[in-house]
């Protein structure tokens, strides 16, 4: 079996007196599609934000693709990561946000080409060609010259996915990417992600409340509650026969709220 691409070892995350993650450990295999589910405040989004280095950790270690994420080797021991180390690590990871976070002052095409040109020194023509391929894949090629404000939520999110893919990360993080969308726009974004799952061997971590999608998409489901992984397993195990009472309660509530499983 391949070595894990992400190794999370006993990490804690505290905001003042509030402990969000409490001694959490988990591994992710290369190419694995992982869905993180659980009630709000359970720490699942925090995990993604920590992996994207948007948050720091209060304790523990994370290894991504063979290197420490928040630490770097220095004189034989581990020191906190500096900007250069973080820059190197961020290259491996891409993230799509709940609220898209497109750059409103740049057209769709420029949103996608900006980072490759700036961080990898890709020539404009090359970056644009690649961007058009990606926009075509997410069905947004015809909107390349539009400004973000002219797009629907679903279109924005598809552009955001193309933008993250343009850096060819090994790992993609999806943080509730359909939660801010009108119901009728959810499907177009999910379709793009299904396509990604089939066509690429990227490792994908997904935080979602779309249980039906998590079921179809993921190789493995992690159920979070109060900063801990309460239960994990294959989608059919978790959704058909959850072992833990808290998982059962959560899924019952979700189904009662009208989500398909």
């Amino acid at each position, binding site marked *: 079996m391949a070595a894990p691409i992400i190794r999370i070892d006993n990490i804690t995350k505290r905001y003042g007196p509030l402990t969000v993650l409490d001694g959490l450990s988990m591994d992710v295999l290369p190419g694995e599609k992982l869905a993180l589910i659980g009630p709000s405040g359970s720490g699942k989004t925090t995990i993604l934000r920590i992996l994207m280095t948007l948050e720091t950790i209060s304790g523990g270690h994370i290894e991504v693709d063979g290197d420490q994420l928040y630490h770097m080797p220095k004189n034989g021991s581990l020191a906190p990561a500096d*900007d250069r180390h973080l820059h190197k690590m961020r290259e491996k990871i891409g993230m799509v*946000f709940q609220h898209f976070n497109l*750059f409103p*002052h740049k*057209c769709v095409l420029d949103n996608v080409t*900006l*980072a490759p040109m*700036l961080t990898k020194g890709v020539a404009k023509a090359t970056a644009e060609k690649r961007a058009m391929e990606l926009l075509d894949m997410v069905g947004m090629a015809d909107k390349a010259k539009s*400004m973000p*404000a002219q797009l629907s939520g679903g279109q924005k999110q598809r552009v955001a996915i193309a933008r993250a893919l343009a850096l060819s990360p090994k790992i993609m993080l999806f943080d509730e990417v359909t939660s801010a969308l009108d119901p009728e726009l959810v499907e177009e974004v999910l379709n793009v992600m299904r396509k990604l799952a089939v066509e690429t061997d990227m490792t994908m971590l997904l935080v979602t409340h779309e249980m039906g999608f998590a079921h179809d998409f993921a190789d493995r489901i992690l159920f979070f509650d109060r900063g801990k992984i309460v239960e994990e397993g294959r989608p059919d195990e978790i959704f058909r026969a959850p072992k833990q009472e808290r998982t059962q309660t959560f899924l019952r509530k979700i189904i009662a709220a009208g989500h398909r499983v």
Partner: protein
Amino acid sequence: MTDWSGYIGLILEGALVTLELTVLGSLLALVMAFVAGLGRVSRFLAVRALATAYIEFFRGTSIFVQLFWVYFVLPFAGVTLSPLQAGVLALGLNVGAYGAEVVRGAVKAIGREQREACIALNLSRYQSMRHVILPQALPLMLPTFCNNAIELLKGTAVVSLISLTDMTFQAQVVRAQTGSTLVPFATILVLYFLMALAISNGMRWLERRVTRGLDGVRT
């Protein structure tokens, strides 16, 4: 009957000095606003402290006193400036301190989400600021910059204290020589107003230019 043409000419000469002070002072203020404003959001404590000290000092003391220091006290430290240099320096540093807070506020107003997108796309701090934050912050600064520039224009009147023959100074000369208050002061009233109008129209034009695309079709 007074022959006004010569006196009006005197006032117009003063208007040129006022204009010069306003333009040069605004340029210095703009530079200081960005240097100190970005310094205030620096991650280095020393830079933040320095920027804060500058802003608080120049906002907290009057332009009148600052001008006296620059012109009359700096020579004791071996720095002698011409009246124009002293005027530009005092006005630029003073208004720049206000401008710095405008820059800081606008930069802060560009939300966390944009910064996080920059991190996720692996942009450096400089690249984020240059390509993402500042282009969006600039339109937010302009209306207040316009205020600051007009304030600076009106502030130029204090330089008559260090013997610079600006518009207000010339008006007082004319008043002293002709005994008429109405004509010289009505003239400079109109001139100040026209200059302020030019500033606000220019700023409005600039604002339209930099916000183009943000709320509609890219041109």
